[in-house]
């Protein structure tokens, strides 16, 4: 499918026009060395072919080379991420036809070049060995004709008998797909589409509908907010559109010309990634979200001179924090923002009211072009499940959902499925739900398929195949088209949809082909916003009435939930940054990604506050049995300072049984603990009983010690201090010997600790770029994870209101590197470009460099991690190895490795500049960690060039070097974190 299409490259690639490359190649004479190399390869290859027992595979070179592929040169395709419903713009890097790396698309107005950890890891999911090889019927592999025949026959029967057909899908952000579904509705009167999000936002959705009469969620603009209040909303980690929000948020964390930066209050039960970044983090019981919102509303209303008419809730809330938050909100009204993750409609209405009273509607809360994410509607799902029980559903199509795993009463749903005559799943594997379905028609991976997306109204993006389907799969849309009796060509369908629906609204007066070509090239397309500013939002009488009753309701809840029994606790369920709702569970990169807050890998755990831990006599690692009337779960405890004393937290998305061997048996499934209130699924509940199970289970953490021991490692300063003091030149550390003269460049990094949120996307990006192996839980327990970059998290202050500081730590590429001096065989030396190089071939593995590295960033290959049954992850199967980056060696057993500052990218950039006969320009070269960073916190560049961005950051007032006093002279520098706490 992919081959018969012409592809567009992104700008970067277009710059190196194909002719240049050809001519350059022609100029190059094959040197004796090259000749020998190739001859050697040929000999070795033939020898191997000769002695290999397996089937001899003939490698046939291109006779007629496809014009868009150049061996050894990456080809880039613009696409759209399918990891969640945020639909971030992507550029997919393919080598020799294989997607090997995902990068953010800088053209995207939303994600703007950033991606998240799970987005980065989706390229590995493409090569997941657990994916179905083709369609199955009753679990037996069959041909597409066969399965189509059976399905169509039954569908015809259903339509004839006017039986209910239901498409149960996750949120669909693809307008074309939505159009296709609409077509089904039109054709089949008994057809219904139910949207189901495992982690639901339906309360916010309903509240938004009630207040602003729009079908969607507000599009929040953190980049316009000077004061941000988050109530149990992890908007930097998992809430709605983390990449976009991180990007916006980070922009306001850097003091602008006027020395203004945003101040962030976070009210939450568990310590979230967002909470660790807040200037003021206030632990609250999970049940107090409404009370907090109401308390803020009352204060804001008083300022605004509006009557709330709601009584105060006498919950144990930190009045001071609420007061100063409300004060800041009011001071920056119009440029402030309150968001809440509550699943209580009334609370969400109250939050909307606060924003309305503050005049944030239209500025930080955009309802003109609402977000189309999270369309799940809990009520219609509940209704569907009931109907299934009654046997009223004849046909059920499951698309991008896995309710048999993540529906609270999964057993009930499974029973319901039995009474459905025809169940079809589009799942890519036999997961919990698909294994119960009659037919499984595996969908493409999103990197294999055509698609489009409209996560936020009027900003579109396209997805194009970056590789021909690896397996005998078929796009779900093609299946739907087929069964509708149409030509199963979704590409044509998308094109047609854009021609008919999007082109007419294009303001630039281009032909459709021009528009399409541009959109496909850029990957994104957004209408120019109409210049005419819409009139400012005026709260209608209905709206006022609505929020006032909501306020009453919230007050009522507050009173009822107040004063729980002494030995009853509250439970709070959350998503982790990596695994999210469990859909990525079989991805080893994500399983081994340390949680940004706890640094724990491979599994979930029960988070509780130190005070509670003491009361229960529990320590981290002790297994705790957590009971609620209808369910029970046993998990190891993790003691987390800052956790709300009365609330324990558990991560969703673990305990997958049918996701694959990576995910199997990792953690426990917390979805059964999800309750329902007022028709909305609730992710917190009360009446939880805790008791020690009497055994313990070690937690595979990559950082055991979280105190900084009073050492100046992560340095902080306050905004006022920063503005008052002027830059003073720091004395250069004295050296015992003269500095060596370097080469033309001196590569370095500058990392802004102020904008870095610790989201850990860089860790996965580095793993993907540099073929970093996955070692598994046991080895992590032995302290042997291989990540080249890690995010150190230090916690200080009181155990109730701790301060968390994060610091990305990778090889510091010291000018005077302690590791280099001690290597007996000179396997690690310094390049003329100022890089600390590790020569794998020369390394004999004495590990002295590891011992002598003050930053402990070196990683040793304790075993052979590739093609080793003991480490049965992606590097142990031929499909999984397709993700490996051919530009980076797979390290052998017994050698040391570490961050190379993406030397392959550096060389690539230098080569490109050379071909174009120009010096390397600042910004030409981006390391993987820099490219992925949604907060733009990591900057790579040439320290020899005083005008380079990195050099200017290094000259800045906030810049410092970690462990400067040892005299290692690192080329990696850090910018101090700024605390913007209110003096109140």
């Amino acid at each position, binding site marked *: 499918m992919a081959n018969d299409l012409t592809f567009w490259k992104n700008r970067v690639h277009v710059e190196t026009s194909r002719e240049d490359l050809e001519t350059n190649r022609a100029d190059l004479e094959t040197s004796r060395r090259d000749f020998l190399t190739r001859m050697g390869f040929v000999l070795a290859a033939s020898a191997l072919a000769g002695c290999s027992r397996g089937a001899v595979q003939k490698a046939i070179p291109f006779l007629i080379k496809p014009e868009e592929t150049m061996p050894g040169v990456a080809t880039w395709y613009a696409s759209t991420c399918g990891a969640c419903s945020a639909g971030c713009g992507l550029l997919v890097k393919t080598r020799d036809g294989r997607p090997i790396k995902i990068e953010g698309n800088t053209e995207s107005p939303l994600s703007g070049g950033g991606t998240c950890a799970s987005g980065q890891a989706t390229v590995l999911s493409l090569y997941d060995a657990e994916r179905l090889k083709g369609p199955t019927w009753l679990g037996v592999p069959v041909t597409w004709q066969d399965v189509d025949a059976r399905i169509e026959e039954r569908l015809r029967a259903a339509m004839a008998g006017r039986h209910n057909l239901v498409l149960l899908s996750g949120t669909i952000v693809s307008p074309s797909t939505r159009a296709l579904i609409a077509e089904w509705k039109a054709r089949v009167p008994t057809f219904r589409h139910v949207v189901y999000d495992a982690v639901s936002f339906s309360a916010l959705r309903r509240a938004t509908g009630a207040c602003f009469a729009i079908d969607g969620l507000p599009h929040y603009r953190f980049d316009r907010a000077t004061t941000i209040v988050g109530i149990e909303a992890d908007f930097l980690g998992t809430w709605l559109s983390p990449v976009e929000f991180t990007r916006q948020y980070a922009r306001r964390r850097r003091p602008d010309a006027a020395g203004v930066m945003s101040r962030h209050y976070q009210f939450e039960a568990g310590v979230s990634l967002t909470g660790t970044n807040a200037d003021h983090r206030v632990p609250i019981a999970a049940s107090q979200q409404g009370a907090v919102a109401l308390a803020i509303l009352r204060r804001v209303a008083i300022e605004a001179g509006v009557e709330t008419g709601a009584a105060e809730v006498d919950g144990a809330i930190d009045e001071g924090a609420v007061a100063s938050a409300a004060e800041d909100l009011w001071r920056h009204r119009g440029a402030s923002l309150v968001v809440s993750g509550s699943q209580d409609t009334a609370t969400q209405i109250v939050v909307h009211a606060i924003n309305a009273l503050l005049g944030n509607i239209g500025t930080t809360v955009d309802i003109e072009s609402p977000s189309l994410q999270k369309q799940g509607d809990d009520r219609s799902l509940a209704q569907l499940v009931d109907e299934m029980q009654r046997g009223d559903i004849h046909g059920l199509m499951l698309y991008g959902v896995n309710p048999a795993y993540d529906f609270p009463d999964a057993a009930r749903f499974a029973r319901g499925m039995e009474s459905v005559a025809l169940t079809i799943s589009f799942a890519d594997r036999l997961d919990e739900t698909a294994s119960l379905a009659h037919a499984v028609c595996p969908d493409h991976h999103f990197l294999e398929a055509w698609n489009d997306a409209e996560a936020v109204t009027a900003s579109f993006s396209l997805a194009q195949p970056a590789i021909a389907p690896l397996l005998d799969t078929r796009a779900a849309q093609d299946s739907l088209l087929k069964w509708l009796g149409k030509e199963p060509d979704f590409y044509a369908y998308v094109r047609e949809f854009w021609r008919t629906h999007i082109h007419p609204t294009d303001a630039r007066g281009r032909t459709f082909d021009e528009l399409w070509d541009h959109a496909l090239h850029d990957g994104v397309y957004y209408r120019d916003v109409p210049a005419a500013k819409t009139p400012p939002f005026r709260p209608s009488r209905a709206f006022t009435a609505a929020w006032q009753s909501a306020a009453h309701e919230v007050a009522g809840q507050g009173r009822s939930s107040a004063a729980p029994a002494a030995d009853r606790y509250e439970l709070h369920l959350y998503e982790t940054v990596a695994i999210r709702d469990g859909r990525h569970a079989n991805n080893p990169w994500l399983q081994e990604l340390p949680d940004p807050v706890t640094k724990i890998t491979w599994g979930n755990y029960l988070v509780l506050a130190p005070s509670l831990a003491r009361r229960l006599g529990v320590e981290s690692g002790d297994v705790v049995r957590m009971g609620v009337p209808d369910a029970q779960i046993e998990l190891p405890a993790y003691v987390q300072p800052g956790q709300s004393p009365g609330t324990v937290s558990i991560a969703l998305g673990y305990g997958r049984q049918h996701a694959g061997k990576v995910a199997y048996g990792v953690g426990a499934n917390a979805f059964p603990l999800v309750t329902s209130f007022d028709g909305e699924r609730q992710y917190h509940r009360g009446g939880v009983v805790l008791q020690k199970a009497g055994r313990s289970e070690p937690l595979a953490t990559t950082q055991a010690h979280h105190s900084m021991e009073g050492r100046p490692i992560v340095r902080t300063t306050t905004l006022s201090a920063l503005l008052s003091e002027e830059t003073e030149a720091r004395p250069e550390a004295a*050296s015992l*010997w*003269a*500095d*060596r003269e370097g080469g033309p460049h001196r590569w370095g990094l500058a990392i802004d600790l102020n904008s870095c949120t610790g989201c850990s996307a860089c860790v996965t990006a580095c793993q993907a770029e540099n073929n970093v192996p996955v070692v598994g839980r046991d080895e992590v327990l032995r302290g042997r994870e291989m990540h080249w970059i890690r995010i150190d998290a230090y916690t200080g202050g009181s155990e109730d209101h701790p301060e968390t500081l994060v610091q990305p730590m990778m090889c510091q590429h*010291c*000018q*005077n*590197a*302690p*590791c*280099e*001096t001690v*290597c007996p065989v*000179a396997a690690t*030396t*310094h*390049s*003329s470009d100022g890089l600390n190089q590790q020569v794998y071939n020369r390394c004999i593995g004495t590990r002295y460099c590891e011992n002598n590295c003050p930053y402990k960033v070196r990683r040793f290959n304790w075993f052979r991690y590739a093609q080793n049954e003991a480490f049965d992850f992606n590097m142990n199967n031929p499909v999984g190895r397709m993700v490996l980056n051919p530009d980076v060696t797979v390290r052998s057993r017994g050698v040391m490795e570490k961050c190379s500052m993406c030397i392959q990218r550096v060389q690539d950039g230098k080569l490109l500049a050379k071909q174009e006969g120009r010096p390397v320009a600042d910004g030409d070269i981006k390391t993987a960690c820099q490219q992925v960073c949604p907060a733009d916190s990591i900057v790579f560049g040439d320290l020899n060039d005083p005008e380079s961005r990195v050099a200017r950051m290094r000259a800045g007032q906030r810049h410092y070097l970690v462990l400067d006093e040892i005299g290692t*002279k690192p080329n990696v520098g850090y910018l101090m974190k700024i605390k913007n706490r209110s003096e109140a």
Partner: protein
Amino acid sequence: MSENAFAPEFLVAMFDDQRRLVGAVNAVRARGLRVHDVYAPYPVHRLDEAMGIRRSRLPLATLAGGVLGLVSALAFELYVSVYDWPLNVGGKPDNSMLAFIPVAFELTILSAGLATVAALLLRCRLFPTIRPRVVGRSVTDDQFALVLRWRHTAFDPQVERLLYEHGARDVSRKAIER
């Protein structure tokens, strides 16, 4: 000990006691005779002076070896680190002389020691395949042998008596077995 009837070249006096031996040696030399050699199970004090053995020149071999080791080691280290393969190792200068000292020192000791032993073995003709010229098996155990050349003493009948006077247990003409 096979008796050679035709050319008994040596006059061998056996002693039980190192003091008597030394006395005998002094007496014989006072008489102006050259002592061919003395065989003993262990180094006998004051015997060297008595026999007039000059001080050994082995230390020269040691010195030569040491100098050779030192110079070649330093030269090689400099050649490798400065001339042939200059690398930026930890930002240190190519010529990190201080760091080159330990290896140079070890090689100095090594070659000095080996040179000494080699010189000793060569000078004393010590080698696994060499068949020993032993005057009698007991001299490597508990006996001492004073050996004179027969032709030096042939015309001096006093010698044997002299030897007996100085405590020789037994004096006899014999060829030393090869």
